[in-house]
């Protein structure tokens, strides 16, 4: 056992104290796990739903995954069709009239399945569905209902920062928009729904804006290192390719989802020269790289980002080699979170397939994401403009306070 402090005797004592309950009071306060309604329980709480979805959407399809997916689809196919394929609102609204057991989580999950829809947007759509289904007659009631729904959504997948951010954003919009107070309830309600539906478009539009903003930074003959699969990054590179820029892309493999493979596929379709690297070859190739471009799962208050595992080490390497690190992310990924270090973010676990059986004694680091401090980021490309990391907090303060 490795002891954290030099005065490890104290640590050991505390360990022993912890084994024997130190005092009933503290035990009481710390022990009860956060209980929630059974229906809201995430079926697999130890595995991040967010990263499962990401893997499903962006990872390279392996044969066993395909088998699993087929199995899953065959079960779910009927209700998926109803909500996704025909128009988005009509069946939902119609079907829900008599349906008492409306669950915001089901709604969210159905939205989440669309590969092109960001998680935050899915959350907002789900909340819009709550508004639609709600029988509230006053704004206050609606707000309370929304708050409840968003809390249950957040509790369903605590690992997903974009889900939380999306919920917060929408709640904020509802409570903040002063115009709503002066309208009658029905028109205010329809405005909210309209707004929520617009979010989907906004998210697509945000990607376009970001892609346009990035063009100034991609110059002819540059080499871009990309980590993971990000829709925004893909959009940026696609736009650059369409603008006839000559550039080269290095894709990391992105173990264990191998999302990098997916990105390299997409880029190859655009005739962009792509080179695949294994994740450990980043430092080896860094001297050839002109810039690092990554997406983000979330942009946190410090101005740092939370992104797929490996972003931090890439940022560290490029910082030490004085290469710029650019982050492309939509502004709805801004989250009111302030991690101080890696472990400060709640871990989002996922299964890792090593291809060979791992002895049970061997521990596996299963976290799916890491936190990159703002110190190592050069610029953030968002739909609000090109920002330095420190502006993120300003925007968040203006948004939330």
């Amino acid at each position, binding site marked *: 056992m490795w002891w*954290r*402090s*030099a*005065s490890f005797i*104290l640590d050991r004592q*505390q360990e022993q104290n*912890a084994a024997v309950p*130190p005092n009933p*009071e*503290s*035990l*009481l*306060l*710390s022990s009860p796990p956060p209980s929630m309604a059974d229906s809201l329980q995430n079926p697999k709480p130890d595995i991040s739903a967010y990263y499962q979805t990401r893997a499903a959407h962006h990872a390279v399809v392996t044969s066993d995954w395909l088998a699993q997916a087929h199995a899953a689809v065959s079960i779910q196919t009927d209700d998926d069709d109803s909500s996704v394929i025909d128009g988005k609102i009509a069946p939902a609204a119609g079907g829900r009239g008599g349906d008492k057991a409306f669950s915001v989580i089901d709604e969210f999950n159905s939205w989440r399945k669309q590969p092109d829809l960001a998680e935050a947007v899915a959350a907002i759509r789900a909340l819009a569905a709550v508004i639609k289904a709600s029988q509230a007659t006053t704004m206050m009631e609606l707000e309370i209902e929304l708050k409840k729904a968003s809390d249950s959504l957040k509790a369903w997948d605590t690992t997903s920062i974009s889900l939380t951010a999306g919920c917060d954003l929408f709640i*904020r919009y509802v409570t903040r928009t002063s115009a709503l107070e002066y309208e009658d309830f029905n028109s205010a309600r329809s405005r909210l729904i309209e707004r929520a539906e617009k979010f989907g478009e906004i998210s697509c539009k945000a990607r376009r804006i970001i892609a346009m903003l990035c063009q100034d930074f991609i110059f002819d003959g540059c080499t871009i290192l990309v980590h993971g699969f990000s829709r925004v990054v893909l959009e940026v590179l696609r736009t650059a390719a369409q603008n006839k820029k000559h550039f080269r892309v290095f894709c990391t493999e992105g173990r264990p989802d191998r999302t990098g493979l997916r990105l390299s596929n997409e880029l190859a379709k655009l005739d962009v020269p792509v080179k695949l690297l294994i994740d450990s070859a980043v430092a080896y190739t860094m001297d050839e790289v002109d810039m690092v471009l990554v997406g983000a799962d979330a942009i946190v*208050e*410090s*101005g740092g980002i939370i992104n797929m595992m490996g972003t931090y080490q890439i940022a560290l390497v490029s910082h030490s080699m004085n290469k710029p690190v650019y982050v492309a992310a939509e502004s709805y990924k801004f989250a*009111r979170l*302030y991690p*101080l*270090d890696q*472990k*400060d973010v709640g871990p989002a676990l996922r299964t890792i397939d090593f291809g060979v059986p791992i002895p049970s004694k061997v521990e596996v680091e299963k976290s799916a994401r890491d936190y990159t401090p*703002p110190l190592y980021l050069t610029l953030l490309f968002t739909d609000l403009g090109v920002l330095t990391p*420190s502006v993120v*907090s*300003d925007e968040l*303060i*203006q948004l*939330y*306070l």
Partner: protein
Amino acid sequence: MDPRRTARTVSDPKVRQVGFFTPAAPPDRSASDLPRQQDPIQPKSPSSTQVNDHSTSGDSLSPVMIPPPHHHSDTVPRTALQVTSPKTAVSCSSRTVTVPTKNDGVPSSFSPGRKIVTVKSPSSYPGVKASTVPASELTTVSMVNLPSGISEKAGGASVEVQNDRPVSSKTLKEKTYKAERRALQEAQRAAKAAAKAEGTKASTAASKVMTSANTKPSKAAKTSSQKNDSSQVAASEKKIGERAPEKDRKKDAPHPRMQYDDTSRVEKAKKRAVVKQTEVRNRVELFRHLPQYEHGTQLPDLETKFFELDPMHPAVYEVGLQYLSGDIRGGNARCIAMFQAFKEAIKDYSTPPEKTLIRDLTARISSYVSFLIECRPLSVSMGNAIKFLKNRIAKLPLALSEPEAKATLTSDIDRFINEKIIIAEKVIVKHAVTKIRDGDVLLTYGASSAVEMILLHAHELGKQFRVVVVDSRPKLEGQLLLRRLVRKGLSCTYTHVNAVSCIMQEVTRAFLGASSVLSNGTVYSRVGTACVAMVAHAFRVPVLVCCEAYKFHERVQLDSICFNELGNPDAISRVHGREDISDLDGLVNRENLQLLNLVYDATPSDYVSMIITDYGMIPPTSVPVIVREYRTPVVLVSDSS
């Protein structure tokens, strides 16, 4: 302090409110009588009618200046003063005033008030530490001793002319008509330019004239002859001499950032000062622009002046003394104490006739503030709080009646204390606790009230963590914190800052308090904080600074030199409780030895991971956003988490 506002009050001839001066310094007394005209207590004094008799007695305000005749009766005005003084004392008798006393500190030129106190003062004066004497005792003392003081004074009539002056001038002022006053103003203005060059000289001369009442006519004549002018001009000059220091006072007195190496300004400031701080002789070259005083000498002196400082509210006086003695320290404590005192003062305030509450109260608050500055330089928190209060006063609707206005202000003050300090701290605690995990080792430096609350709250929540309290000489504030933490059952380690690099490797979070956070993210805090933060940064330990948003300041500071406070150099040359360490004895005043005891230092924002404030957890780069967004003082602390 808002210099613009003070300047405006200068241009207003009605407001001559500010002032409380020691008779020991000749130039001051000339200035002191003007403010006394406005003293709200004076007209109530029973002797005011009597004094009407000699209202012509050489007062500065009469448009045609007659050399002031000899004051026949010194006893009458003195009784006037002494009738009022117990009243002042009574009003504060419920609280305890820290009034340390010292026998040998009595100057030869005494005032009745001073005399009273020294008669009964305890024999020993315990260093810097203030001995607390209940005010009630003080009051009785003054009353018991009063007759003797008078009788003694009746004989030696020459010393205290000052005390009767306000009464006479007050009555005179009541008599002067508006036109007369305007004429007077014009005369002053005309003579101002001429007098400016020799302003101080003239004032000194004029004050001399007034000091020695017996020789006054002759001296006045002498001055006028020296000036080769008619007596009238001399008189007007004298009058300007009287006014000049007052104007100075208003213009630049309470400037909290006066450069103390600017000798002329320091001279001016000194003349105005109530608190006669003796300056330390050997100051470190780099820090000459900061005020540095010999601590411990001014307290008995100040306390004797208690009855002379009529415009000073006893509550404010008490707080000032407590600042001086170090009984109240820490940004929040000082700010709350100041506001409580102001609240008392506002409660007892009544607008003098011919004045508006808004202007007069602002001026009065300014005078209180400048007194407090003399006791100890303002902290940023206090500066912001004062700004808030003045803003509130200025924004009072004119239609508001006096009791209403006072009630509004009192509730404003209460709200400020509640919202910006008490609730803010709770919000900070709520945020900060989320950053404490089981198994953490938290380091803190000095004693910050916010950090203490965080630690205690986290402990209440049942989090398992250890605390390292880092402390430093000379104040050893950490011991108090340590005591409270240990009593609550937290497991603590106590060490001095010397060992911080050793202890840092086992620390997981460093929680630091702050006196202020400046808009470039620099954290201005107790000296030693920067060192701790830097070591923590070097060890990759996140540094969390806990600071209420009302302590944020838009100033930018790059070092801890240009704005700081110098503590008592004795504190570092001596080790408390170790008399055997006497290596520096007798060396302190040597020319080639400079002792530097800084009170604050500036931590660059690079070393700060996060600032926890009542608006949430923000990076140090976002301080200007908070400063900008919440400039308006009336913002409810919103909690949106």
